[in-house]
């Protein structure tokens, strides 16, 4: 008798497969990732042009520029992650295959989060150089903030990308739905990054990391539960 797919063991076994599949697709189309990194760097330059040549202001807001460039670039990445599945009919095939929707969500969201972390790592050195904002606290903490912040964008972002993938106005709807939702995540990421860059004598980073962790736990759970309905619809 065939075992019903969807148990916890199956989900855990399927997640790395979906993750590897998505990362392989992105690796094969790495010129797209390069274009995305260029877009993020262009945004960093635009912020500095918009604010002006005041070095102190630019340094004070370096964390905000980093996260805004990652956030604006993320909509392109997130939309793309579902677009090639929809265009090729692969999503329909995946839903017909004995793959749990939860595994599909967590695999795709992890792949998106990994790419966003990579994008943050690419954008960070130019931020430090352009805005003269060296990291004064341990770099490991900044890595942790990046991982938690990107995970916070990736979970609802993957769900909303799936939700809008087949709609006519998807380019408009994805940021309209996603950006307001992730404001707490953006706020915590910016504050924590700014504190790590300017120094944190009062030890405030911990509370922002706590908020990021709470946001991640909430949305990784909620979106994992709802993803099956989105795909079915």
């Amino acid at each position, binding site marked *: 008798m065939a075992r019903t797919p969807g148990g916890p063991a199956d989900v855990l076994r399927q997640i790395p497969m979906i993750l590897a599949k998505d990362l392989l697709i992105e690796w094969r189309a790495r010129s797209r990732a390069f274009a995305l990194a260029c877009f993020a760097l262009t945004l960093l330059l635009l912020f500095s042009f918009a604010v002006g040549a005041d070095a102190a202001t630019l340094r004070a807001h370096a964390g905000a520029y980093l996260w805004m460039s990652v956030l604006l670039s993320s909509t392109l990445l997130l939309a793309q992650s579902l677009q090639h599945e929809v265009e090729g009919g692969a999503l329909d095939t995946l839903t017909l295959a004995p793959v749990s929707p939860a595994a599909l969500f967590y695999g795709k969201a992890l792949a998106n989060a990994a790419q966003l972390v990579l994008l943050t790592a690419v954008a960070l050195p130019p931020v430090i150089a352009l805005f003269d904002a060296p990291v004064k606290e341990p770099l490991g903490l900044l890595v942790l903030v990046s991982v938690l912040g990107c995970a916070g964008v990736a979970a*609802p972002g993957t*769900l909303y990308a799936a*939700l*809008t993938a087949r*709609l*006519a*106005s998807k380019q408009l*709807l994805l940021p*309209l*739905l996603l950006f*307001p*939702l992730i*404001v*707490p995540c953006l706020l915590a990421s910016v504050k924590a990054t700014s504190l790590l860059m300017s120094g944190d004598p009062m030890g405030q980073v911990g509370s922002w990391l706590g908020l990021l962790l709470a946001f991640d736990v*909430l*949305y990784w759970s*909620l*979106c994992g539960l*709802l993803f099956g*309905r*989105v795909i*079915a*619809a």
Partner: protein
Amino acid sequence: MGSEGAAADRLLSWDRVSLVIGLLLLIVGHYQGLFVAPAEAMMGDVGRILYVHVPTAWACMLVYTACFVFAGLALWSGKGKWDAAMEASAEVGVLYNALLLIQGSLWARPTWGVFWTWDPRLTTSAIVLVLFVGVLVLRRVITEPERRLNLGSIAAVLAYAGVPIVYFSVKWWRTLHQPFSSPATVSDSFITPLRLAAFGMIFLGIGLIGLRWRALRREVERELSAPALPAALPTLELGQRGPGGAA
């Protein structure tokens, strides 16, 4: 079918009753707030916005909570009536939320000196407004009723996650905004007009949701019960005759 529809209309006339009760409570409550209750010790007459603003905020939270519950019921049951109730409550929530921000801005100008400041309570309230506007826009874009029910409800559930953040924002962040308001935090002489206005806004909200629900429910249920279009419409080859004999 006709008598069934009329019976449904009669059963749902609670919305009109609720609307009238709400308006009466608001008239009495605001009369008391404006002319009977004493002026606030620090702000003077400007403080009387308490009787408009705080009840709007409470009612707005309740309407969004109702929207969340209706979205959950629509997802669970797949029934059009809950989908219509979700949309109706999202619309009323957006209306109350917009009123809340306008009232707050009118109060902020004489009190803080500006119409708007990037205070956590104000900012999170504006974000929730945009979240639910997004839900309504999403519903307008989707034409297939079943997909609209599912995706619209999921978006509403996710949007509701912002509501507790608004509520707790005055506790979590340093803010210019007053902490939680309740009858326990105001003078005894303010309690009656505040309660009357609060129940007025709640009954008004129930009435508005009911009115919109009736209109939307017919539309949604008609769409959900309509036979699905065939995947591909039959096409006539050039020169082939159709069923009526026309070429």
